[in-house]
């Protein structure tokens, strides 16, 4: 187990394409950090640089306080779980688990006990002698995890390990990964483009965009106080409503909004913080365009005069409203997030 220190890391590909623009990130011992962002944001590149599969153009990466820039992946004492699992197709599950240990000259008895333990932990004992192609997607995923676990490395690196699974299995495995990581307390870096996965797994969330870090923090912190418009739009589903300040002022009067920081021209509100009915905060009048019942909750698409884009609101259960109804919508004061369009950042 170890900390991972990333200092001033840049990645420039041949042809002067910059994938990573200088990243500083300290990952603590035993921490599970999730790198999340849209495709092309540099999250996988950063992970692969930690693994040693991509060269580092500038800056340093240290694992357990030792700079590893010029070390081969095998010399970094990390284990990786790949999106397509990358199981060796011609080897049995057992041989897949053993391969990394054998290459390191681990004694036979030690190999056997580690494989047995990992197999028990992941409940893959019945398949140990099978070939990967005889396994289901979920079972392969477990084997890929097992291959990382038996190594007892300083860090686990996960590269979108659940995106090849169907939704139900993904949910199960997410819980399982979380549980395993808590139990093993191995420093982990986890890459995903799925914000829900990121939120539920992370000790700390690193939101990336365009080769830069947008925000680092606990998932709830990031959710409750997104540092930029990008994070506000990326984390949370349905995404945050963004209302132009001018439009809001026209509705509720400019007097009440005057002590906002300068530069503020957009106000964000999470769909689940909006409420119907009168009370504290601003009240707008909206027409219900569409109601999407999602099961336990309902998504309302509302049209408000003066505001071009429809507002989305999440209500518990099945509200007694029909399409076309006119409702008062309340935005609680503590649910408002001020942003600046020019800088793309939060202003308070």
């Amino acid at each position: 187990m170890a900390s991972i220190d990333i200092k001033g890391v840049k990645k420039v590909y041949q042809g002067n394409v910059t994938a990573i623009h200088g990243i500083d990130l300290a990952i603590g011992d035993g921490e599970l950090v999730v790198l999340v962002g849209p495709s092309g944001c540099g999250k996988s590149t950063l992970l692969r640089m930690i693994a040693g599969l991509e060269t580092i153009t500038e800056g340093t990466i240290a694992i357990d306080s030792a700079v590893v820039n010029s070390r081969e992946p095998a010399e970094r004492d990390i284990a990786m779980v790949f999106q397509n699992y990358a199981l060796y197709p011609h080897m049995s599950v057992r041989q897949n688990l053993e391969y990394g240990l054998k290459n390191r000259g681990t004694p036979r008895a030690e190999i056997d006990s580690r494989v047995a333990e990992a197999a028990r932990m992941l409940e893959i004992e019945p398949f140990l002698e099978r070939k990967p192609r005889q396994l289901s997607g979920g079972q392969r995923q477990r084997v890929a995890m097992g291959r990382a676990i038996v190594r007892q490395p300083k860090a686990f690196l996960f590269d979108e390990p659940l995106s090849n699974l169907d939704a139900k299995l993904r949910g199960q495995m997410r819980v399982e990964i979380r549980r395993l990581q808590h139990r093993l307390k191995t420093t982990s870096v986890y890459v995903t483009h799925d914000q829900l996965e990121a939120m539920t797994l992370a000790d700390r969330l690193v939101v990336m965009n365009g080769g830069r870090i947008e925000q680092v923090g606990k998932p709830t912190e990031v959710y409750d106080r997104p540092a930029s418009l990008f994070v506000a739009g990326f984390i949370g589903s349905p995404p945050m409503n963004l209302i132009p300040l001018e439009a809001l002022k026209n509705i509720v009067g400019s007097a009440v909004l005057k002590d906002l920081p300068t530069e503020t021209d957009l106000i964000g509100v999470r769909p689940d913080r909006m409420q119907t009915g009168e009370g504290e905060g601003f009240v707008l009048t909206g027409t219900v365009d569409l109601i999407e019942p999602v099961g336990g909750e309902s998504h309302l698409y509302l049209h408000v005069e003066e505001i071009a884009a429809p507002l989305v609101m999440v209500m518990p259960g099945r509200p007694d409203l029909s399409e076309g109804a006119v409702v008062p919508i309340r935005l609680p004061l503590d649910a408002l997030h001020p942003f600046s369009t020019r800088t793309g950042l939060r202003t308070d």
Partner: protein
Amino acid sequence: MDTKRTVFPARGLPYLLVAPQLLITLIFFIWPAGQAVKSSFEAEDPFGLSTRFVGMQHYLRLFSEPAYLASIGRTAVFALAVSIISMGFALILAVAVNRLVRSASAYSTLLLWPYAVSPVVAGILWWFIFNSTTGILPFALEQIRIRWNHQLNGTQAMILIIIAASWKQVSYNFLFFLAGLQSVPQSLNEAAAIDGAGPVKRFWTIVFPLLSPTTFFLLIVNLNYTMFDTFGIVDATTGGGPNQATNTLVYKVYTDGYIGLNLGSSSAQSVILMAFVIALTVIQFRYVERRVQY
């Protein structure tokens, strides 16, 4: 020219890995080819003691030599005849096998094995059959008043090597036509049938056009085969005779150079053939790129 996304750190190892292949290529392919080009521009004195540069002389002489021009013509006749006969025959057989379900693989086996017969053995087999004194076919032809003697009759000698070369190539063409036919979607055939096209019409309007990439590919391969791989057939049946009637370009390189020791002319002939293979290879590879999309 792609590699993997990540590569192993390169030091000396990759050079060691390509070294055997490259050494053999350089020593036994590139260097001799270069020598052929060089000596095609040179003449040796009668004692082989010195050589001098003579420019295009060998080439000019070749193209004014009736024997060489005749050899080009003969090779063209031979190559086209073999390609058309063996491809036509193979296509008929492939279409027939493709209609079958249960017995298809048994027929395939019975049609594929001649691929494993070497050209020289194919030549011996057909020579035995057409041998003017003991062969079974001349005996049969005699009954219908045709005198067969390919040792005297140049046309008959040409027919003999065409038959032998076509016979051997049928398996190869059959295999690729069958693969091509099997990749024609069955739904197209069914759609055409619903549109009222009978089996013959369906073949010519639907299946055959879709086979055109395969046909073109096979045509190139067959030209290559008849030009270069039929040395054994010619050597075992006619030896280029009678009176040069079956002296194809490749066989002529061998007789002029290895037997006749006319180095300059043989080298010039080699270079001309190389140019031809290069052209065929370029056409084939351009076409393969399209085939990938198809």
